[in-house]
């Protein structure tokens, strides 16, 4: 793989003994809609270690964002966590009441939203909105908050932070607004940041700037990041570990080097075939046929089976479990057998 991919690594992830800061186990989320129950997340497991960047990739509608929002109790109308745990600091966030959760979200877990237009209140100056995080969570007084926010904005490369503090969201450019969003997520010095497609709304130069800032600032503080994205390039650039999701199920999980060198799951291979690879610039991009399903009933077999070129009867009958294929590399596919039997499939 290209060199630039390898350099952005932290060494935290190699330290397997480190206790995960956030551990999600067997999470199941359903939405009750007028047209039936949508099975958005069907048993997701993952863990993030301190300082680690975990990338969750997959198509739209594969349950990536819902997984994160359900951990924070921000599912919205009709959404409910059916079972599972999200261990954070020795507490199961899923079990917490809304009031208890209020002391965690935004304070110990920061969130960077994708939707820049709606992420900020258009009626309040941007600086005071960031400062509200500190004030509402009773981390410091309004005066100190004001000072700290300006420091943070400065650190995030917002020029003339003092004047920006008083400006309204619509007076800032997209990149500035995203920086401000990052500032509001990180100003309370959380242990984990959920970044929900943080750079999708930005153009690619600003995107790289913002990502560099985010990696930099998180590395300095040892903040773990869970980033949802569907951009393999962005993921390869920044993440330490990748979780591939489809149909609300984890399909593959691997450290980034492993993931880039030995992608295993047919879905992962499909994603790779559909995205640009600088190693093979002439290769035509091939979409995965079909569309991601809206799961109106719990998937019986592998959720990817209807679109998979390798699917057999067993795929449609039984949900494959995540199995270790190589050290730290786990795949949920019936056609991937065991640790030693691994053989990468050709790109379809």
């Amino acid at each position, binding site marked *: 793989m290209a060199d630039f991919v390898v350099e952005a690594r932290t060494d935290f992830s190699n330290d397997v003994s480190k206790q995960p800061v956030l551990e999600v186990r067997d999470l199941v989320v359903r939405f009750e809609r007028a047209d039936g129950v949508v099975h958005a997340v069907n048993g997701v497991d993952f863990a993030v270690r301190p300082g680690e960047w975990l990338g969750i990739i997959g198509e739209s509608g594969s349950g990536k964002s819902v997984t994160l929002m359900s951990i924070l109790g*921000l599912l919205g109308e009709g959404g409910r966590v059916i079972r599972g745990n999200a261990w954070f600091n020795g507490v199961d966030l899923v079990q917490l009441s809304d009031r208890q959760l209020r002391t965690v979200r*935004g304070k110990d877990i920061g*969130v960077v939203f994708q939707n820049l237009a709606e992420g900020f209140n*258009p*009626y309040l100056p941007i600086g005071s909105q960031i400062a509200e995080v500190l004030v509402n969570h009773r981390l410091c007084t309004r005066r100190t908050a004001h000072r700290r926010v300006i420091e943070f904005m400065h650190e995030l490369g917002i020029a003339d932070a003092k004047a920006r503090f008083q400006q309204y969201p619509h007076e800032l450019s997209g990149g500035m607004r995203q920086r401000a969003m990052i500032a*509001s997520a990180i100003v309370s010095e959380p242990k984990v940041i959920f970044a929900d497609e943080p750079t999708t709304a930005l153009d690619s130069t600003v995107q790289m700037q913002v990502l560099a800032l985010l990696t930099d600032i998180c590395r300095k503080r040892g903040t773990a990041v869970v980033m949802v994205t569907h951009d393999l390039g962005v993921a390869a650039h920044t993440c330490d570990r990748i979780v591939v999701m489809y149909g609300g199920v984890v399909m593959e999980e691997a450290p980034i080097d492993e993931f880039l060198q030995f992608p295993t799951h047919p879905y992962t291979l499909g994603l790779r075939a559909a995205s640009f690879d600088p190693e093979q610039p002439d290769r035509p991009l091939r979409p995965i046929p079909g569309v991601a399903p809206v799961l109106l009933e719990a998937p019986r077999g592998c959720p990817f089976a209807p679109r998979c070129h390798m699917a057999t009867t067993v795929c449609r009958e039984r949900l494959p479990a995540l199995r270790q294929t190589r050290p730290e590399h786990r795949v949920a596919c019936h056609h991937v057998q065991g640790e030693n039997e691994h053989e990468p499939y050709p790109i379809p």
Partner: protein
Amino acid sequence: MSFAAISDWHERASHGRKRRRRLAWRRFCRNGLPVIGLAYIALLFIVAIVGPFVTRQPTVNIFQANQSPSWAHPFGTGQYGQDLLTQIVRGLGGTLLIGVTGAAISVAIGLIVGMVAGVFGGFIDAVLMRLTDFAFSIPTLIIALFIVVVTGFSAWNVGLSIGLVTWAGCARLARGLALSVRNGTLIDSAILAGGSRWYIATRYVLPQIASNMIVFFVFQVASVLFQSTTLIALDPQYVPLTGGQLPPGSNLLLNLLNGGGGSYIGYRWLFWFPLGVYCSMVIALLWIGDGLQALLNPQQPLPRRWFAAWPRLRAARGGKGVNMHG
């Protein structure tokens, strides 16, 4: 270009609450109409306060009935020989008081009920909305009349009673708007900022629905005045003019009711003068409402200054720069 840059620099040089207030005021003045409206309403208030001391005493003189406008009676006289200008000026105080208190009470109740229902949802929402259904179902005018008969006919009581029975529409509107704001990234980020329900309601939801509420308020003023006129006329002991005075708790629309029909037989002033004063007042309120919407919304563009020429003069004299681009 350079001019814009300089003025931007001015813009940025001052910040904080002062800057926000200044920008808000400039948005209010954006197209001049709100300022005209504000000036007009202020004038009406002055007339309402000073007028009764300046105009002649209200009298009835049957020998001077239905006279067309003249120097002695600038607005003409009505069917009982009452001076129409006197009647309108004396009705103005009641008009403003009834309209504003009535609309304020009804919008205040409606806004609180609707927003609490919308923001909290669930059981509270269900209870408050059933209450609103009930408020919708009551025959507003009759209940308001009962309240006024018990408390006595006065401008305050008439405004209060109508406000107390007409808040249901506002509650519905406020709830709907609050619901449309509630589900979205914006509120998620407010929750993440550790905001309590109260904080979210006042800082996130209220500003979003404020502009609709302002428009509703202005229409409510008109509606309250109309209803209060009907209320007075519904009073079993209604007498058009008691000793030459409009009945207590009435407003200038009553002049229209008393004599407007006279325009059929050529007494046009009886129709046009009360109607003109009333309509111009409502229009002025609408313009103020537009200005308030602009004032509250920081995303509104700043003025094209065809109305407010004075800052340009000030800039020419070497005062503060003016941002022509807004």
